[in-house]
């Protein structure tokens, strides 16, 4: 089924590009370079291009219908009998974006057929050629509306992505689709001078296409591949690498044509044969590329799949040096960064890791031998990719006392331990954050759900809005909680206030004042983020968390009498530009 979808897409893309390229070739290259010198062969070229276009349109229609039927089967999870018998295909055409694009393209297909027949049966005029080029361009460019680009969120982003995709299709079509008529002309050229003019003219078209292909290809990759790591570490990226290699080979051939063969054309016929052979090679490369395009559109783009890094080394952008890398270096945790995972990770840490790394993860465990010096995880936890932390826990570190915990701890257990280390290191990083908004903060607040009186449950991270987290100690925080609950400035600033009891404080105080309610695991995890007053006692602490879940400002203790802390909080919450660098492991959420 998937093979059928890939084949249908590939044939459809190839046929659509071929029609456009044929028409562009006849209109631009042949119009100038061919007709003047080879009037006798005009009829031959016209017949050739009409036959190719007609065949391509037929192939485009058949593959298009096959594509539609397979998509309808997948969308509805139905058999081919259901899709046709129960008119699911009509529902798809009427109610989905893919269906709407399909209908629009069916109309363009008809218009293209009519305009080709008109070109063939009446005297060719500039007007008719222009119309045919425009309709063929629309028929090709609208393919961008049926792919990954169409699903992009957001107005400008979607327009940029679809625009880049459409330009990419047009440039590829103008180049690849023009190769078959070029071969025909090279075979039927009456004179060397005709071949020379043809080659010169074609290389102008080719260079323009290549420039557009590179620029629009880079834009498309930024959206769909997202990173260099994904370009090499995902199936989507690796298939794209093959496509890029084919493209590079075709460029090398095109460059040979342009800079070596064309200048030699005047001197002999060998160049002419080489040109033809090279054009055939380019066609072969183009067929490969179109086949890959057929598959890429059905795959999960690299930006969204788990990256498995294939090399032992990588380039650290921040340190600007080459460092060791593991298969999971760029992997993102399948376990969400929330208090449940952190709490389970903390329990695992206490039983397996604290002996050496220390109860508070400062690398000072009792069992650690003086010579080994276990890592201070609280200090270093945020400075390594979470994928590396995973790898070291799972497979140990050679040459050190760090043992491998896989397979006795499963995948999920290891990721939970990683999430605990990230939380522990975040709490440590938060210690240096004061009431001023910190633009370099890497301290991540673990996600959790909470309930507010009379409203549906909410989560810290899901809302993509800032929040003030108040870690309170009863009964001293009572007055402050009431003050927060009644301050309308916070409400007007759209700032959520979430009260979390410190260990030993009854949970209903926060309930009563701010009407929020959180689970016991939230309280135990967030105790790490509380400041201390004097000795070791945990103090009332307020954390300002931005829309990305990063702790940006922190107040310790209760406000001094007469001080207007809420004013400070509101001002800070209104001015939190995204931090200068995203902490490791942050990615657009899902």
């Amino acid at each position, binding site marked *: 089924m998937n093979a059928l979808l890939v084949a249908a897409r590939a044939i459809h893309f190839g046929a659509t590009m071929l029609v456009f390229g044929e028409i562009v070739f006849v209109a631009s290259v042949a119009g100038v370079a061919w007709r003047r010198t080879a009037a006798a062969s005009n009829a031959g070229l016209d017949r050739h291009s009409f036959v190719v276009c007609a065949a391509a349109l037929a192939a485009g229609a058949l593959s298009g219908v096959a594509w539609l039927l397979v998509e309808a089967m997948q969308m509805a999870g139905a058999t081919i009998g259901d899709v046709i018998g129960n008119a699911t295909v009509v529902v798809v055409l009427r109610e989905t974006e893919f269906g709407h694009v399909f209908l629009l393209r069916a109309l363009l297909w008809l218009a293209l057929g009519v305009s080709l027949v008109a070109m063939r049966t009446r005297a060719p005029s500039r007007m008719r050629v222009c119309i045919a080029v425009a309709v063929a361009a629309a028929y090709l460019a609208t393919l961008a509306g049926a792919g990954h680009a169409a699903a992009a*969120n957001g107005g400008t982003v979607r327009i940029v992505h679809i625009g880049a995709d459409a330009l990419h299709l047009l440039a590829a079509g103008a180049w690849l689709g023009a190769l078959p008529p070029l071969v025909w002309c090279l075979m039927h050229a009456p004179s060397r001078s005709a071949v020379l003019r043809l080659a010169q003219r074609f290389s102008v078209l080719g260079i323009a296409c290549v420039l557009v292909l590179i620029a629009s290809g880079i834009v498309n990759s930024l959206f769909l591949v997202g990173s260099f790591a994904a370009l090499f570490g995902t199936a989507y990226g690796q298939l794209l690498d093959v496509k890029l290699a084919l493209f590079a080979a075709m460029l090398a051939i095109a460059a040979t044509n342009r800079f070596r063969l064309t200048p030699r054309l005047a001197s002999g016929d060998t160049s002419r044969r080489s040109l033809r052979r090279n054009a055939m090679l380019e066609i072969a490369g183009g067929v490969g590329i179109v086949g890959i395009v057929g598959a890429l559109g059905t795959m999960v783009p690299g930006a969204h799949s788990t990256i498995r890094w294939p090399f032992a080394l990588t380039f650290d952008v921040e340190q600007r040096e080459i460092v060791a890398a593991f298969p999971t270096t760029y992997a993102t945790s399948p376990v969400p960064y929330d208090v*449940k995972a952190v709490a389970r990770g903390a329990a695992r840490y206490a039983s397996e890791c604290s002996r050496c790394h220390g109860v508070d993860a400062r690398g000072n465990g009792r069992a650690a031998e003086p010579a080994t010096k276990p890592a201070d995880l609280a200090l270093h936890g945020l400075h390594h990719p979470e994928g590396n932390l995973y790898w070291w826990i799972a497979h140990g570190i050679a040459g050190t006392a760090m043992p491998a915990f896989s397979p006795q701890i499963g995948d999920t257990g290891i990721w939970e331990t990683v999430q605990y280390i990230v939380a522990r290191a975040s709490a440590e990083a938060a210690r240096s954050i004061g009431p001023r908004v910190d633009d370099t903060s890497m301290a991540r607040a673990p996600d959790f759900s909470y309930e507010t009186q009379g409203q549906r449950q909410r989560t810290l991270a899901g809302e993509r809005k800032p929040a003030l987290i108040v870690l309170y100690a009863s009964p001293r925080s009572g007055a402050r909680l009431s003050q927060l609950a009644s301050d309308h400035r916070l409400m007007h600033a759209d700032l959520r206030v979430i009260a979390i009891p410190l260990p030993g404080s009854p949970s209903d105080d926060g309930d009563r004042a701010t009407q929020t309610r959180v689970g016991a695991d939230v309280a135990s995890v967030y105790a790490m983020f509380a400041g201390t007053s004097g000795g070791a006692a945990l103090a009332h602490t307020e954390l300002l968390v931005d829309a990305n879940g990063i702790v940006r400002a922190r107040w310790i203790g209760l406000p001094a009498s007469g001080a207007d802390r809420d004013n400070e909080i509101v001002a800070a919450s209104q001015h939190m530009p995204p931090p200068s660098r995203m902490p490791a492991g942050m990615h657009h959420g899902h």
Partner: protein
Amino acid sequence: MSIRRIAFACIAAVAWLASATAAAHAFLDHAVPAVGSSVHRSPQDVRLWFTEKLEPTFSRVRVVDAQGKRVDRDDSHVDATDASVLTASLQRLAPGTYRVQWRVVSVDTHVTEGDYTFEIKD
């Protein structure tokens, strides 16, 4: 315009594009009741936020109890104001564990599905 300025503009443009939300295939971003969470009152509905816009006709969510019995009101639909939100209203739920099962089609035709549980506490 100096070369440096042009280079800066190019880098800024690339950074802007790279930071834009890429899409294709709708994945669950977050949900309410949240994945694996506990709720103290019976919620009126489930709401699921996806990473891209959905095809309303082919996107469904249902909720079952521990015995596999449907407890949603069979009115699963894509939100009228936000095409990336799928919702269904719920019957009154007794304390217990419930499973949310979803199958969605994104506007670029890709099918994704998944499930998660939440718990109603006394």
